[in-house]
């Protein structure tokens, strides 16, 4: 109802947007478009257009498919786990607790801790000679080269959760606090069970937050590359090989065409995902309204 009143602020918007838009288009948009163009060329000095050849080659590349698959897997598993965990934490923290403030601060602190600062800790835990294997050895089990096995992605997931759980948790906390108390009271008066209340009140009213959390979590799941790279190098165990590895390696072998083609494909997928999300969200909002 309020949107209509501000319709047609094009000129003012242009003034407010101008500084950002100029810089943004020059430093992000334009380079991306150049890159996009290059993904259709053959990369020789002349740079003749080869159409979709790079894309076809890309899709044919087993490693790219593996990278895409791993990325999808990681996002597909890591993000829900993260969201589930942070929601649980938020629900628990939403109660009256001892040291609630301290607990919240501690959980949020990893958010600001640089990856490189704590990478040694992860190493000490998961190395071949690391602590985890030391514990394994003590209970008489063979040691596992964690970073070189199917477990590697779980380890990265642990790091991902460690770093991002605080952020999501406070988002959920805010969402929880915005749900009016009397909804719950009414429901309990009507004899609704705990699970019912959670599913039909909490989840429903959290859904706007959920979309945002989802988006942020996906964005952050792409940032996990830094940790992976620091721990496992440019050719990790294939379970860990993600799109960023692929792009990074393409850069180092100077294959800009494939790099941009891969980025474009990834971009397209994310675009689909995000716009899909936004659409669902809009529909959902219309539905709840």
């Amino acid at each position, binding site marked *: 109802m309020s949107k209509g009143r501000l319709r047609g602020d094009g000129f003012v918007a242009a003034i407010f947007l101008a500084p950002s838009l100029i810089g943004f288009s020059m430093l992000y948009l334009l380079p991306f478009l150049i890159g996009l163009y290059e993904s259709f060329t053959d990369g020789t000095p002349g740079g003749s257009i080869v159409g979709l050849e790079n894309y076809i080659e890309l899709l044919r590349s087993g490693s790219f498919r593996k990278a895409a698959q791993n990325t999808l897997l990681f996002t597909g598993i890591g993000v829900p786990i993260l969201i589930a965990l942070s929601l649980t934490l938020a629900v628990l923290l939403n*109660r009256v607790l001892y040291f609630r403030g301290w607990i919240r601060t501690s959980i949020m602190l990893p958010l600001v801790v*640089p990856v490189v600062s704590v990478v040694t800790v992860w190493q000490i835990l998961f190395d071949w000679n690391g602590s985890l294997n030391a514990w394994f050895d003590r209970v008489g089990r063979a040691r596992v080269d964690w970073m070189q096995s199917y477990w590697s992605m779980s380890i990265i997931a642990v790091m991902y959760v460690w770093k991002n759980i605080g952020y999501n948790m406070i*988002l959920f906390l805010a969402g929880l606090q915005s749900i009016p108390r009397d909804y719950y009271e009414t429901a309990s008066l009507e004899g609704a069970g705990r699970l019912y209340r959670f599913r039909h009140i909490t989840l429903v009213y959290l859904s706007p937050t959920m979309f945002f959390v989802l988006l942020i979590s996906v964005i952050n799941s792409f940032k996990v590359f830094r940790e992976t790279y620091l721990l496992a190098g440019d050719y990790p165990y294939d379970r860990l090989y993600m799109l960023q590895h692929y792009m990074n390696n393409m850069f180092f072998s100077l294959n800009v065409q494939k790099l941009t083609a891969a980025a474009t494909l990834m971009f397209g997928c994310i675009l689909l995902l995000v716009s899909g999300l936004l659409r669902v969200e809009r529909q959902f909002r219309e539905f709840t309204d």
Partner: protein
Amino acid sequence: MAHQTRLSRLLLSLALGAFAAAMLFPIAFTVLNSFMTEEEIGRNYDLLGKMAEAPAGGQAAFVNLKLLPDWLTIRQYAQVLILSPKFLRMFWNSIALVLPIVAGQTLIGSLAAYAFAKLRFWGRDQLFLVYVMTMLMPFQVTLVPNYLIMDRLGLMDHELAIILPGIFGAFGVFMMRQFMSHIPYALMEAAKMDGAGHGIIFARILLPLAKPGLAALAVLLFVDYWNMVEQPLIFLQDAAKQPLSLFLAQINQSARGVGFAASALYMAPMVLLFLYAESYFVEGIQQSGIKG
């Protein structure tokens, strides 16, 4: 929640406290180990990343995870802060890179966010989507074109080659738009009635109200740019201009203790900033997340 007994509250608190402690573990570990003597660190962690010959007795050798040092030393700190001028030089380099970026992006981001959140124009949502998308783009994609542009602008090997892309990053726009869209239109309407233009509305009403958002953004940006590695690696040839984020990569494996000390010092500004701005930060993030 009247039925919650005191006991269950205590148990839950303890459980969550344990979880929080686990979350804090890597940080505490780094900080505590930074006071360990180099000799002890060598003893504990020397096997890291090494495929050592299996000892004859069949007893496998492992690193020894140790939280509390036997013997406290600040030698590593002295090494980092006093004996080597590199750390501090890079620290100030980082400050000189990050502060302008944070200031610039919050300002420019808020301006653009105002347009996205409170103004209506053609293609608004699509344009915003483009902004959001660039946040997901890996840096390698724009690297080569960016290199060309920086070269054209004559900014190679100049701090601005890092600062400019930082200032125009999309995250500030995104975050501030999220935040501003929760500010009720009613406040703006009231100001409009009094004859205020958009500039005044932005500066007098939106910005003060968006303070928590700005604080949260500033902290997040600070963290983000404090940690950037690739951009300075490529755009700053001059070793003397490199920021602190590259320092840890230059520490020898044999000097892990120095690495711990440098790590602790490296995260200290951000932890302090976070603790100081925590309430704003929390509020800012929360408001950006709630759709209202």
